C-alpha cells in the first residue's frame, strides 16, 4: 500500500484537495456539511464518477473518449421511449442499452486500434453521429417520464444510503480490482506509457485499447439511464455537461492526460471536487457562468501541477544517466 501511495502522489493530492475544499465550503455555507446535503452532493458526484470511470480507463490507455455525451444521451432517450414509463420493459431495455453503449465503444476502439484513427476524431465523429440519430428518432419531441425503478436507483435510498452511492461504490471496487489486481491493468498502464514498448513486450495492445472504449461506452450508457431517473425524464442535451466533467474528474484525480498513470480512486476524488465546487459557488453568490470559469481554472491548475511533477521526474532521469 505504501508503494501505491508513493507512486500515486497526485491521487493523494486530489483527496487532500477535496478535504480542503469541503472545509472551505462549510465555512461559507454552514449547512453544507449536513447529512442531507452531503448525501445530495454524493448523488450528483456519482453521475460524474460513473461516466468518468470509462473515461479513466480510456485516458490511462493513452486515448480520450469524446463520444460520452451522446452515448449517455442516447441511452437516456431510447430507454425512456422503450419503457414508456413502465418498469417491466427495463428487464430487457437495460441490458440492450448497455450492450448498445458497449457496441459504440467497440466501434470507437476498433477505429482507434485497428484503423489508426486518432481518438479525438474517432470519438468526436461517433458523438455527432449519435446526436444526429437521436434527433432523427425523436424529431425533438419530449419523451415519456422515467420508470419508477430507475428513479429508485438514482434518487432512492437503502437505509441511510443513496442507492446510487452504493452502485458507485461497487463500480469503484470493480474498477480498482481491474486496475490494481488484474493483468488487464498492467497491460493498460504499459499501453498508455508507451504503445511501442507494450507491443514489443507482447501486450495485446489492440484488444486492451478496444476494451477501454467498450468500458467507457458501458458506463456512459449506464449513467444516461440513471440520470433519466434523477431528472424524471430524458431530454436532448442532458449529456453535454459530462464531456467536460468526465475528463476534468480524471485530470483532477491525478491521471496524466497523456496516459500511463492515474487511478480510478483519484477520479472519485475528482468527481467529488467538481461537485463540491458547484455547491460552493452559489454559496459565494457566484453565477453558473462563474462556475464554468472556475472549472476551467481548476483543470488548468491541476494539469499543470501534474505535468510539472512529470517534467521534474523526466529531468531527474536524464540527469541520472551516466
Amino acid at each position, binding site marked *: 500500500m505504501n508503494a501505491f501511495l508513493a507512486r500515486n502522489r497526485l491521487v493523494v493530492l486530489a483527496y487532500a484537495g477535496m478535504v480542503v475544499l469541503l472545509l472551505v465550503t462549510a465555512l461559507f455555507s454552514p449547512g453544507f456539511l449536513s447529512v442531507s446535503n452531503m448525501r445530495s452532493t454524493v448523488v450528483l458526484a456519482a453521475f460524474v464518477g460513473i461516466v468518468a470511470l470509462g473515461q479513466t480507463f480510456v485516458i490511462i490507455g493513452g486515448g480520450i473518449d469524446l463520444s460520452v455525451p451522446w452515448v449517455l444521451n442516447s441511452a437516456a432517450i431510447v430507454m425512456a421511449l422503450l419503457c414508456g414509463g413502465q418498469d417491466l420493459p427495463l428487464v430487457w431495455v437495460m441490458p440492450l442499452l448497455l450492450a448498445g453503449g458497449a457496441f459504440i465503444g467497440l466501434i470507437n476502439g476498433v477505429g482507434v486500434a485497428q484503423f489508426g484513427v486518432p481518438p479525438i476524431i474517432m470519438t468526436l465523429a461517433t458523438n455527432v453521429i449519435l446526436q444526429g440519430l437521436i434527433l432523427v428518432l425523436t424529431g425533438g419531441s419530449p419523451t415519456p417520464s422515467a420508470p419508477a425503478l430507475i428513479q429508485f436507483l438514482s434518487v432512492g435510498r437503502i437505509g441511510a444510503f443513496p442507492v446510487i452511492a452504493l452502485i458507485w461504490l461497487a463500480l469503484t471496487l470493480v474498477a480498482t480490482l481491474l486496475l490494481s489486481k488484474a493483468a488487464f491493468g*498492467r497491460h493498460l498502464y504499459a499501453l498508455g506509457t508507451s504503445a*511501442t514498448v*507494450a507491443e514489443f513486450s507482447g501486450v495485446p495492445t489492440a484488444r486492451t485499447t478496444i476494451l477501454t472504449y467498450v468500458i467507457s461506452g458501458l458506463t456512459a450508457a449506464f449513467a444516461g439511464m440513471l440520470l433519466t431517473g434523477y431528472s424524471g425524464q430524458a431530454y436532448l442535451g442532458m449529456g453535454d455537461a459530462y464531456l467536460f466533467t468526465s475528463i476534468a474528474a480524471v485530470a483532477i484525480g491525478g491521471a496524466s492526460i497523456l496516459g*500511463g498513470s492515474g487511478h480510478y480512486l483519484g477520479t472519485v476524488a475528482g468527481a467529488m471536487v467538481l461537485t463540491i465546487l458547484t455547491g460552493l459557488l452559489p454559496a459565494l453568490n457566484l453565477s453558473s457562468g462563474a462556475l464554468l470559469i472556475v472549472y476551467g481554472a481548476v483543470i488548468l491548475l491541476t494539469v499543470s501541477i501534474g505535468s510539472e511533477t512529470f517534467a521534474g521526474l523526466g529531468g531527474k532521469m536524464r540527469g541520472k544517466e*551516466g
Partner: protein
Amino acid sequence: MDLVTVKGLSKRYGGIVALSEATFSARAGEVHALLGENGAGKSTFIQILSGAVRHDGGSILVDGQDYRPANPDAAQARGIAAVFQELSLIPDLSVEQNIWFRHEPRTLLRTVNRAEMRRKTLALLDKYNFPALRPDQELRRLTLAERQIVEIAKGLAKDPRILILDEATSSLPAREAEWLLKLTRQLAAEGRLVIFISHRMAEVRAIADRLTIFRNGSTIAVHEANAVSDNEIVTQMIGRHLDRLYPERIATATDRIALRVKGLSSDSRLSGVDFALREGEVLGVGGLQGHGQRELFQALFGASKASGTIELWGKPVSIANPRQALTGEDGIALVPEDRRGQGLLLTKSVRENLTLSVIKRFTENGLLSRQKEAALVKEMVDFLRIKAGTPEQLAGTLSGGNQQKVIFGKMLLTQARVLLLYDPTRGVDVGTKGEIFQLMRDLAARGYAILFHSSDMPELVHVADRVLVMRNGHVAATLEGDRISEAGILRAAMLENEAA
C-alpha cells in the same frame, strides 16, 4: 594555456550525488577522451558543459573566464556544442532544416534563405567529407545511424571551439564510425578541442591524445593516451580488476535446430534469408549497416511483415506480432535495438517492467498475486545482478547497463528459448558488457539458442560461434572457426564473389 579548466565540480539530484569535486582540464587542438562506467558522472559533466544542466558547486573556466551557461544557447555563444546519444532532431524536418534549426540563414525579409541554406549545407558536408546525406531528405526516413550523422553535422554547423561527442560512434556502422574518428582528428588539427566519450576502447586508443577517467562522480586519473595500458584504464574505471571482457568460447551447440529460416523476404530490404540456428549456439549476424539485419530481427519477432518460412524447434510457425512470438515454450524473444523507445517503460518500476510480458502467469482467478510476482522479480534481479535500490525503483533512473539487464530479465521470464539480441551492449559500460557476454554463454550452455547482432565488430568475432554476414538482404557468407575475423566479416560484407 588550457581551454577548459574545471575544479571541484559538484552536482546533486535530490539525494543522489552525480558529481562530487570533479576536475578536468583540456587544451585546444586535442582529442580528450572521457571514460567511466555508466553512472560515473560523464553525462552529468557534459550536460553541465553544454548548458543543459547547472552545477551546484565548483568552477569552470573557459579561456580563463568564468563559465556558467544558463542554457544551451549560452553555451553555444561561448563556442561549446554537444552531440548527444539521445538525438535532438525533428522527424518532420529535412536534413538541412535540422542542421540549421534556429540558426537558419535569412533573407532581407527575415524569411529562410533556402538557397543559402543549401549552399552552406553542401559546403559543410563536403568540408568534413560526410557520408552520403541528401540535404532535402526528410529525417523520419533515415536510419538511426544516419540520424546520428545529421546530429554531428548539426553540432559542427555551430562552428564550435569545443565539440562534445557523447557515444557518437555507438550507433554507427564500422565504416561511418571510422569516418567519425578521422573527422575527430581533423577537428583537433583545426585547433578545436574534442571531448570524446566512448565505451569502445579501440576507438579511444585510436584517436585520443589524453584521457580523463571518472568513477562515482569524481575524477580518478588523467593519462597521456600512449602512456597507459587498456588494463590500467579498465581497472581504474571499474575500481577493480576485470579478468577479461570476453568469456571463454566453449562450444555448446547441439545438433538440434532451434530456428530455421528459409527464403525470408520483405518489401524492406530482406530478400531470401536462409540460415539455421542450433540449440546452445550463439550465432552472430554482421555486415555493413542497412543490409537487412534490423529487418531480419524485426521480422523474426513479428514486429514487421515478411514472407518465407520460419521453423521453431522443427515446427513451422507464423508470427504475426510480438505477442505470438513470445508465447509458449517454443517462443522467440527480442532484446530490441532501442532500449528506451522499444524496450523499457521508463516511468514504471523495475518490477513492472520485468513481469510485463508474463503478468498473466501471476494471476489466480483473475487476480494478481503480488507475492508470486515479488518472488520471481527478486530471483531475476539477483540472477542478473541488477543494481536497483528496490524493485520499485523507476526503470528510467537506472544506468544504461542495468536498464539493459531489466530488458534481458523481461525476456528471460518468458519461456522463449530462442533469443534475438540486437546490439545488446550499445551504450553499456565495460563491466556490464562482460556480464552480458558471460550471460549469453551461460544461456547457450543451458540450451538457449541466440541470434546476436552487434554494431561493434570485435564483439561478433569474440563471442559468436558462427557469424552470418548479410549483404543486400540475404546471408552472403557464414563464417566459422578461424575464418571469423574483422577482416573476414568486412570482406564478405563488401565483396560480391566471396564464397558462402
